[in-house]
């Protein structure tokens, strides 16, 4: 079981302290975290606009976990964030198929998952990678080997 990359926490903490300035020792990770924040923000706005109670509640969890992840610099909070995205996906497909008015939310969700994939692959974080892969499997099952 791989442990999280040495610079993970330092990069995350850099992001928290100076989110819009270029002082991070690893600029690419800072850019990824900025993009993840932007996609989470878009997803949050779309969930709120839907006026669905479940989606609104879950998206508020999203931001609490996001804040906690970057305040603690802990990869575990990113894992919690991934689980919340999974639950949001569950709500979107609770009737078996995606309602038309929620297509935008689904697109935002996919965008956030793409950012998490970027983060996991850059950090070579096996635990985060596995969890994101599970979520991605639900979104695009035909493209992912179920045995991995």
């Amino acid at each position: 079981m791989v442990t999280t990359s040495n610079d993970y926490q330092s990069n995350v903490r850099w992001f928290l302290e100076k989110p819009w300035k270029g002082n991070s020792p690893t600029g690419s990770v800072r850019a990824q975290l900025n993009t993840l924040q932007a996609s989470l923000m878009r997803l949050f706005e779309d969930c709120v606009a839907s006026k669905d109670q479940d989606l609104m509640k879950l998206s508020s969890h999203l931001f609490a976990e996001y804040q906690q992840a970057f305040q603690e610099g802990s990869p575990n909070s990113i894992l919690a964030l991934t689980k919340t995205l999974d639950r949001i996906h569950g709500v979107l497909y609770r009737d078996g198929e995606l309602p038309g008015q929620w297509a935008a939310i689904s697109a935002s969700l996919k965008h956030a998952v793409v950012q998490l994939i970027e983060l996991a692959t850059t950090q070579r974080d096996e635990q985060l990678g596995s969890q994101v892969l599970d979520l991605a499997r639900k979104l695009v099952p035909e493209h992912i080997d179920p045995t991995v």
Partner: protein
Amino acid sequence: MKALLCVLGAVIALWVGMTFGSGLPPIDGMGLIGPWILCGVIGAVTGSIELMQRYSRGTNLPLLLGNPWAITYVAVNVVIALISYQLVRTESIPGLNLSLSEPGGQLRAAIVAGIAGMLLLRSAFVSIRTGEREYPVGPGLLLDVLIEQVDHRLDQGRAVQSFQEVLEIMKDVDATKAAVSLASLALQMLERTSKDTQEEVRKEIDAIIVRPDLLLRAKALLIGIAIQKVAGVNVLKQAIESLGSEILVKQSSGGEARDEGTPTAENWDKIESQLRAAKSSLLP
């Protein structure tokens, strides 16, 4: 201001001795040496309390008490107290009538001389400022010089001893996991640590953890030293024990520590390839 307070304190001590000392009982059975001992004890206690207050944070007490300069500091206080007593006994000080031959007179003289001697030793007639430092001109200069030597020697001794202890304590601690929780717990365990001190330690740890040029092992050691300076070795040890395996470096099942950040190649390759496939599919 400090000089004025010391002189004022000495005058008050003399006045108190004169006013209230007459009712004190004689030191029966102690003979001639009793007052000398009492005076010396006043000097020793004053010097010792001062040192312990100065080095109360993160200092090993045996290291402090065994330091030759610390012993010299206390000895100077004792000597000055004894000299003060001798002066009070033999010299006729205008306005000061301790009535040494009366019952309690010797005791009174010893107390008054001891306290007054300590206060005068810490006084300065003027202070000269050069740059950022202020130098007292007066008896207090002697103590300042001694304290500087005690500081210097203690720092050296503490540095070596602390480093060895912290090295041992922090050897299995993961710097990234411990950065936030270990400092918070250790500082909370100390009841009288000010918020400013806590904030300073946190900033120091934040600066350590973000340095890309340091190995994790070095970061753990530096974090341990930063906490130990304020909280002491015992509190640091207790905080690590309380947090348990949460902040320790994970060991592989084979018993050897895995180099952090290096995934098992085969497992990771599979996951990574699937993640890349997923990403391509998810992108519009």
